[in-house]
């Protein structure tokens, strides 16, 4: 590779340029829909529906955001989404990390068979559970409540999997030393295990938050009353009435997706680790 003559250098210069041109073009394609979403949300009413189309607003206006928060009460859905996503993230982190740690490091009868059964559950599509789950929620009086969305998210096979994989690397000596000192199992979990698995907890937290925030089908099913809608459900219902109001819908889309984009951009290192950790064993 390094034996390049002058001619070869020129050739590699050209291919370097072509490579980067392709990458930049790809980046433009990847970002353009989001760029246009933000741009159109700032256009005066009607400007996004003109020919030839505008890419940038002729005059920047925040009136659509104002309409969303006043007339359409989007603040309420923002609150619902945040409440549900935070509740699911915090509680599921505790539940999944305890189970994941136990599957990795504690011995109990039937552990491996139980874990195999759980793993098999990873191939079951969630939609198969949704019809009876709805009837169950109805039976429990949880239809159209926050709990109806939160409870099924409180534990996930994927989360247990991720934690277990990571917790396997905790040295047994460390746990045994704490036991000899007379620490209870709960104390060991709190003061030895949790500090040792912080990176994967961060990964799982971001992963869970984004997945819960973006989730659509189950909230759509279990929430029938508008006042409990999450942002994606509210947005899908809004587009039915306001499909002509392009700029307004774009402002709604920005509000729905910008929070997760920010979480991702600030914490992407952990999120990306989660993608890779999840793919290690399939």
């Amino acid at each position: 590779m390094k034996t390049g003559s002058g001619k070869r250098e020129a050739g590699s210069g050209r291919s370097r340029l072509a490579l980067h041109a392709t990458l930049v073009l790809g980046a433009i394609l990847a970002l353009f829909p989001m760029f246009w979403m933000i741009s159109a949300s700032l256009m005066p009413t009607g400007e996004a529906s003109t020919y030839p189309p505008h890419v940038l607003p002729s005059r920047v206006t925040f009136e659509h955001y104002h309409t969303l928060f006043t007339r359409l009460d989007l603040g309420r859905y923002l609150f619902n989404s945040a409440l549900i996503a935070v509740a699911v993230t915090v509680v599921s982190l505790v539940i999944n990390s305890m189970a994941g740690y136990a599957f990795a490091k504690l011995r109990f009868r039937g552990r491996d068979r139980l874990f195999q059964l759980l793993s098999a559950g990873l191939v079951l599509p969630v939609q198969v559970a949704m019809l009876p789950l709805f009837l169950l929620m109805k039976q429990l009086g949880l239809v159209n409540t926050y709990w109806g969305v939160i409870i099924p998210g409180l534990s996930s096979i994927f989360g247990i999997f991720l934690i277990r994989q990571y917790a396997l690397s905790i040295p047994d000596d460390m746990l045994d030393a704490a036991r000899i000192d007379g620490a209870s199992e709960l104390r060991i979990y709190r003061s030895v295990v949790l500090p040792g698995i912080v990176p994967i907890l961060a990964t799982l937290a971001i992963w869970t938050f984004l997945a819960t925030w973006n989730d659509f089908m189950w909230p759509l099913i279990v929430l029938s009353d508008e006042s409990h809608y999450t942002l994606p459900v509210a947005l899908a219902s809004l587009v039915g009435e306001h499909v002509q109001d392009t700029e307004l819908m774009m402002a709604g889309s920005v509000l729905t997706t910008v929070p997760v984009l920010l979480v991702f951009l600030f914490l992407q290192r952990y999120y990306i680790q989660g993608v890779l950790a999840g793919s290690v064993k399939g």
Partner: protein
Amino acid sequence: MPAEGTNAAWLFVAPALVLIFVFFFLPVAASLLLSLTDFDIYAVASSENTRFVALHNYAQLFRTPLFWSSLRNTFYFAIVGGPLTIAVSLGAALLLNAKMVRWRSFFRTVYFTPFVTTLVAVAIVWRYLYHTRYGLLNYALGSLGVGPVDWLGDPHWAMPAIIVMAVWKNFGYNMLIFIAGLQSIPEELYDAANVDGASPVRQFLSVTLPMLGPTLLFVAVITMIGYFQLFAEPYVMTQGGPLRSTTSVVLYMYEEGFRWWRLGYAAAIAFVLFIVILIATLIQIRIQREQ
């Protein structure tokens, strides 16, 4: 291991297991039973109004043209969209993995960004980009001399339009996994291929691709499973139209179950979906093994 250790272990796994069994495994099993009953809107009011009908729902399902077209649409989406997504992911991963790339992590983040966006929100954005008169896609094509296409209003174009959007949304995820797979290929293999004078294409076919085998299988399986569950895109962008050309199996299940409250019938649809996904997964694993 002392006895209290075992008890503690059970306390640690109990909350997770109870939740997963009650709110996932139990409903999945109940779904099979539900599909053998005529559970409908009257049964929602009082479950005494439900009867065991054996395989009647399945028989009815297989006689319904809409079920077959929903199955066909779902296969179209998975079989065209799946490989297309994987191809774009692999292409992006190969580009980003090239030695001379600068700002690698910047491009990686940019390409991954569509994956984390909220599906409902970006589906609405694409709906406007696909607009026949005012959409930017038709404007761009128009400047190349291609006439306006009614992307979401033409039964021939609606599914391809949804596929393009799905490729854009999802390729970044597989791309990350491919990059990790590419980086785990030992450098010596390429050095040896270089000594043998193998062309870049030849190197890709005889070094990269075989070494990526397990990664490829993983990516193919999760992409396929995900794509068979197509729902939000047609729900938001086309409502299953035009002429039902984008009604997927899950959308059909949703309509039957939660719009018409025919839960027994809808459960049969859900179970067919499960079997289809299972078979597709097994076929992919088999193909990979044989290679």
